[in-house]
């Protein structure tokens, strides 16, 4: 009877789904990836900053070598670390240094950070703030703004306009770099109450369209037309702009490394990917998206 057939077909389809357990979970070590039929797929997740060159590298490798590479940016740098820790991806992308807490949280994973480039976090402001005269910020000033002690640009030498601070989402590498600079460690950052923004596009979009706006953003995104990157007053009183030269030498305080994180030494597909990004072509991609490639660093 037709009915029986339909019923049986559907039941089989559902069972097939549950049974698909080809234990082909080969690949890096102890990562307890539930053995998947697409064990051939190389999975990456993490920072949207690193994603730019990495995703383009993936496109090239897909086209040239037929590799099956899946990219996602769920949860930013923190998401990359935790998904690598949970064994859900083979490479985590991070735009912040790995902390001891992260290592302790996932004892079974041998986190191996591979440096592929350098970026900087800038404090960006909207056009009216820049034109109003504020072009530099010191650490203390940033701290005061963050803690709500300073609420108007006129207190910092600018126009009479309330500071509209957009805080980066938790888990974003950008935020952690900022917290690192102002407080020494993200954990010491106090609890604050600001509107949040997520990725680069949203941040730039919102800062550009709001008067008195300030936020943290990857410096390569400050186009100098709609949003402007402030120079920072370093500890010794010197004013440092987020220019490539300053980032390369490390003088700009909020520079941050871009990492591909793997579990132990990279092997097979993971190695192919990593090697590509470290090669001349890969590094050209890093530069293309406004970051500094390894050879440009002078430390």
């Amino acid at each position: 009877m037709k009915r029986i057939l339909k019923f049986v077909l559907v039941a089989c389809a559902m069972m097939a789904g549950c049974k698909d357990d080809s234990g082909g979970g080969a690949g890096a070590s102890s990562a307890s990836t539930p053995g998947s039929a697409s064990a051939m797929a190389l999975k990456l997740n993490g920072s949207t900053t690193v994603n730019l060159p990495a995703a383009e590298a993936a496109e090239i490798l897909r086209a040239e070598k037929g590799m099956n590479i899946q990219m996602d940016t769920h949860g930013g740098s923190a998401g990359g670390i935790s998904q690598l820790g949970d064994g859900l991806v083979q490479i985590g992308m991070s735009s912040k240094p790995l902390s001891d807490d992260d290592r302790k949280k996932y004892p079974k994973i041998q986190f191996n950070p591979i440096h592929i480039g350098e970026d900087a976090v800038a404090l960006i402001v909207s056009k009216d703030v820049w034109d109003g005269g504020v072009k530099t910020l010191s650490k203390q000033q940033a701290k005061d703004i963050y803690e709500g002690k300073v609420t108007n640009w006129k207190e910092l030498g600018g126009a009479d306009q309330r500071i509209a601070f957009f805080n980066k989402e938790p888990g974003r590498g950008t935020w952690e770099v900022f917290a690192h600079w102002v407080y020494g460690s993200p954990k010491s950052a106090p609890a604050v109450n600001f509107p949040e923004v997520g990725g680069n596009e949203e941040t730039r979009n919102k800062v550009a369209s709001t008067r008195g706006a300030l936020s943290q953003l990857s410096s390569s995104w400050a186009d100098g037309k709609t949003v402007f990157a402030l120079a920072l007053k370093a500890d010794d009183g010197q004013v440092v702009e987020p220019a490539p030269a300053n980032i390369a030498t490390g003088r700009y305080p909020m520079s941050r490394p871009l990492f591909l994180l793997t579990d132990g030494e990279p092997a097979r597909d993971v190695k192919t990917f990593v090697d590509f990004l470290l090669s001349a072509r890969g590094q050209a991609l890093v530069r293309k998206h406004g970051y500094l490639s390894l050879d440009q660093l002078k430390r």
Partner: protein
Amino acid sequence: MCRTTDRVVFVAALGCAVIACGVLLSIVAAIAIRGLPAVSWHFLTEQIRLVGAAGGIFYNLVGTLLLIATAGAISTPLAMGIALTHSYYLPEGRARRNLSLLLYALNGTPSILFGIAGLIIFVKYFGWGKSWLSGGILLGFLILPTVTVSLVERIKVLPGKYIEAAAGLGLTRSQIVSSVVLPQSMSGLITGLLLGLARAAGETAPIMFTATIFAGATFPAGVKESPVLSMPYHIFILCQDSYDPGVSAKVWGTATVLLGLVFLLSLIVLPMRLKVHEEAKNA
């Protein structure tokens, strides 16, 4: 006095209608104006390149279609079972009412909760990672009330004479169901399915934790760890995280295509619904 009241009421109602229609139509216009320039055959058949800044949305389209097809496949047997149970097998009374209430409640459940539940069940407990099947199942449950109610409504207006004739011929209850009721109510099933699929196509929340990624997936192989791309998620990510000013046109283009798909599904249903409407009036 009456004339003034009349006029006031008329103007107020007219104003509301104008505002309502105006706002809604201008939304569609806004999307189309910005998005149509980006849509072309090329856009639909090429895949994402340069992380969304170039290329097309082929695999996003494929992913969305796969998700809604799965949702349809999941919800069809369930909806048929529930509709039959509701209309025929359960006696009039509390059980039937409770089933109705359950469907009603399910229909009102926020879609983000499907996403959270899916995260717990499929990603955590089943260990499927991100899988197209999780998304399909979640969407299937999401549209279940739509499909079921459409079926139930159709069954309700079935001319009794067919059933009486079948009963007169000596068919058992279940034989009547399988040979008379189900075939006759197919239009209700299809109507409900198309309406449900139109809704499922645009949903982001149920799939963003469980089934879809931004780039890299093509056709899924197997069940576990096989995410798909999808149009709603593509738009959602590009709103926040787009990588290039040139992406803007692509986002609107994707929105236009998605809207087109939703409208297409809703429009196909129209002749069928008009026919049912006629039949119900004549019955």
